[in-house]
């Protein structure tokens, strides 16, 4: 490997890191505006806009993230006296690094570099899916040691809760991915994307998709599973003692992980950068303007498709946050272990049976599988829904019985 290749790699990595942080920054704006809409408010719309003639303002608030960053940066940086200093300082890093490196295994699109590689896929490795799982599972450290190192009981409780929650939902997450892996017959992420050229996995793996959505939401400790940082109980949870940029890093890692999860969902279930028509369009451009242009067009279009899908899912995330109230800790554990895990196992069994019984790529069985998944999800929702008592208090079924 010569130094130019290394340089190119470094540049690509830098681009990726900057892209994901930018994505994070604008996702916060996206979320705040959307939440405001959901709550019938206006939201941040002052910091930076393009004035249009007639008093109209375009892109109101697009500098808000920069303002936030500046604000956080200039806050006082406090280190608690009794904190475990090094671990305390290390924790944000532990949180951010997995959130960033998880991106390298996700094929963001298809931009062939001419040497059989893909500009938009940093690490096309054999065990791509396992890499994703591994990095996800490492993500818990930031939260756990932040909680411990702060030497604060609320932080500690938040940290322990977070660890338990993340470990619990990793199982359901992994099992829901297993269905996709079986469906596609490969552990390579780009292989999975390619396998969805005909039909997106969301159809046959509908149950897996729903489980993945729920589990990934819990995995990134986001509403309605955000009881780790429940202000009412824990004064903010594991990052109570963190301020300034260190808090910003935690904040960032959470949002990047959320986006990454959505990106993974797009990769696994929504066909990644696939969109009908892209192939033909790029072939046309190749014919007209040469291979490089064709590849570039292909890459940009697939990246665009990928980003659109990710944005749609992100919208869903915000929507969920705006709609669903926070769950209790026992409900959280119940959902993870008693409902999602068995469902995910059922999904694996169904996938295996269909995989053995029907030929690969047959359309009707895949649709049938999706319908079965839909039915199972609906049934579970109906059966496992908390019972509503007369006083309007919701109870878990086991408590209602007592």
């Amino acid at each position, binding site marked *: 490997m010569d130094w130019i290749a290394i340089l190119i790699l470094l540049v690509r990595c830098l681009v990726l890191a900057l892209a994901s942080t930018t994505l994070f920054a604008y996702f916060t704006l996206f979320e705040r505006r959307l939440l405001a809409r959901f709550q019938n408010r206006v939201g941040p719309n002052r910091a930076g806009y393009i004035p249009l003639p007639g008093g109209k303002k375009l892109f109101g608030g697009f500098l808000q993230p920069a303002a936030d960053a500046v604000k956080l940066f200039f806050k006082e940086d406090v280190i608690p006296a009794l904190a475990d200093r090094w671990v305390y300082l290390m924790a944000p890093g532990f949180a951010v690094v997995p959130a960033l490196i998880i991106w390298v295994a996700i094929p963001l699109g298809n931009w062939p570099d001419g040497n059989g590689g893909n500009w938009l896929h940093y690490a096309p490795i054999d065990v791509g899916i396992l890499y994703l799982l591994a990095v996800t599972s490492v993500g818990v*450290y930031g939260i756990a040691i932040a909680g411990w190192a702060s030497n604060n009981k609320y932080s500690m409780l938040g940290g322990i809760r977070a660890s338990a929650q993340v470990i619990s939902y990793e199982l359901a997450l992994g099992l829901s991915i297993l269905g996709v892996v079986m469906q596609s017959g490969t552990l390579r992420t780009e292989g999975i994307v390619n396998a969805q050229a005909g039909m997106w996995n969301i159809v046959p793996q509908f149950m897996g998709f729903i489980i993945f959505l729920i589990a990934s939401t819990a995995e990134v400790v986001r509403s309605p599973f955000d009881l780790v940082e429940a202000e009412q109980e824990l004064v903010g949870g594991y990052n109570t003692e963190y301020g300034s940029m260190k808090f910003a890093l935690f904040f960032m890692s959470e949002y990047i992980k959320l986006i990454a999860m959505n990106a993974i969902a797009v990769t696994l279930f929504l066909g990644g950068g696939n969109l009908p028509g892209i192939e033909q369009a790029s072939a046309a451009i190749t014919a007209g303007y040469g291979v490089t242009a064709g590849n570039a067009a292909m890459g940009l279009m697939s990246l665009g498709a990928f980003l659109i899908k990710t944005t749609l899912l992100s919208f869903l995330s915000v929507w969920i946050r705006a709609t669903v109230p926070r769950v209790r800790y026992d409900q959280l554990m119940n959902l993870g272990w008693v409902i999602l895990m068995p469902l995910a196992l059922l999904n694996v069994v169904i996938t295996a049976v269909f995989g053995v019984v029907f030929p690969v790529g047959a359309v009707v069985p895949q649709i049938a599988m999706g319908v079965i998944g839909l039915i199972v999800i609906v049934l579970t929702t109906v059966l496992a829904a908390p019972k509503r008592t007369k006083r309007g208090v919701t109870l878990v079924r086991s408590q209602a019985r007592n």
Partner: protein
Amino acid sequence: MELVIFVITAIVAIIGAVAMLTSRNAVHSALFLLLNFGAIAVLYLLLQAPFLFAVQLIVYAGAIIVLFLFVVMLLGAERDEEDANPIRWQAPVAITMAVLLIGEIIWVLVRQSQDGLARVGSSDSDFGSPAQIAQALFTTHLLPFEVASFVLLTALIGVVVLHQRRS
């Protein structure tokens, strides 16, 4: 290139191990152990074992160390060696024995490195891929695989039983 990566990783691994050994705080030890495991995982990549790399990260980093941290935090048992050491003669004997052991191992390695540790066979680019591992695991080693699943089940049940609340 490979040598550079190896040397760096090896140094990281050794630093992690030694720091784990000498650290007074159990949480620090666990984190150093994590560092060590991460380094070993990288070595797995060098040794054409990408699958084990992922497994190492998922199981050791993602589960075992987290469990350690969890228990340490839960029990508040970070510093549990404050009281006096009841067996003072243990440390010198142990260190002597450890030195002897590593001496012996080095002796063996030096003697064997000529012939016994030479590389056998050509490098297969597919070697250690998930497909190959799966092939071996589910055909030749199917029975141990099943047995291992039962071991895990037993451990699971054992832990549940241990922590059942007795009325």
